């Protein structure tokens, strides 16, 4: 009961957020939060550009999304698969174990750190 209420609230919030990010371009509005890390340090974080990328993606602009945050675009199918495995963790522990294998976690860690470094060097 409590669990289904939480899921309903989360889905509702996601739909509202999805609509806001679909309708408003974060690049043209001051309401959207700018990245804390970028504001404080002047360097981009691995998540910078995610809001603009989501706006572009919701409007069907895959190339634009790739320009704003390539890592997010690459990670979305992975995230979807991981969430699916997460929801079936007790029913299908083997899928979860495979997706959470140390090798894959290492791969993601290295990718994030490289992405973080390279995007600040080449201004991606």
């Amino acid at each position, binding site marked *: 009961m409590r669990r289904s209420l939480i899921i309903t609230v989360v889905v509702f919030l996601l739909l509202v957020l999805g609509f806001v990010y679909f309708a408003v371009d974060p690049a043209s509005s001051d309401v959207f*939060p700018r*990245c*804390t890390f970028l504001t404080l340090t002047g360097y981009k974080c691995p*998540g910078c550009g995610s809001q603009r990328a989501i706006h572009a993606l919701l409007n069907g602009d895959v190339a634009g999304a790739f320009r704003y945050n390539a890592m997010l675009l690459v*990670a979305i199918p992975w995230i979807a698969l991981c969430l699916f495995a997460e929801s079936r963790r007790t029913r299908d522990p*083997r899928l979860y174990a495979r*997706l959470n294998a140390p090798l894959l976690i290492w791969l993601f*860690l290295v990718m*994030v750190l490289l992405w973080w470094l390279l995007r600040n060097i080449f201004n991606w």
Partner: protein
Amino acid sequence: MQYWINHNGVQTGPVELDAIKEMKLTSKAYVWHEGLSEWVNITQVPELQGVYVVETEQAEAVTGQPYQPVQQPASQPVQPVGQQPMQPEVAEPCPPTNLVWAIITTLLCCLPAGIVAIIYALKVQNKYREGDIEGAKRASEVGAWWCIASIILGILSWPLVSMIQMSAMSS
């Protein structure tokens, strides 16, 4: 759900329910699945009724002995000769690594706290593989807190960052 079967000393598993129906088991088989503290006789697993052949009844039908209820198995299953104690290899599942939440917070919450959560996901796996279940559980909890902290800090920093931006624009 997945089951482990021990039939006449031969252990198989994990297998799905549909596969068990084709295994031609008898009432001597023992079953374990997640949630059971020990192996139980197949006759005591409600969802497996009708998938096995009851051996004692058939024997009685041939010999003409008066009917007796199916013999209740001893609480401890008979240990097959020359085998280790019958525990499935994955008796305790790995605690959650929270990896997917670490990825989401890394890419959406601006503060690199998500990266710490990824490192804790690795720690969960390493501890689990060393056999340190308690350590894996602790790492799992700490990683989850890093994910939550990343989200809360991301939300809290919103007005702060807006103020910094505005003061930068006005000056």
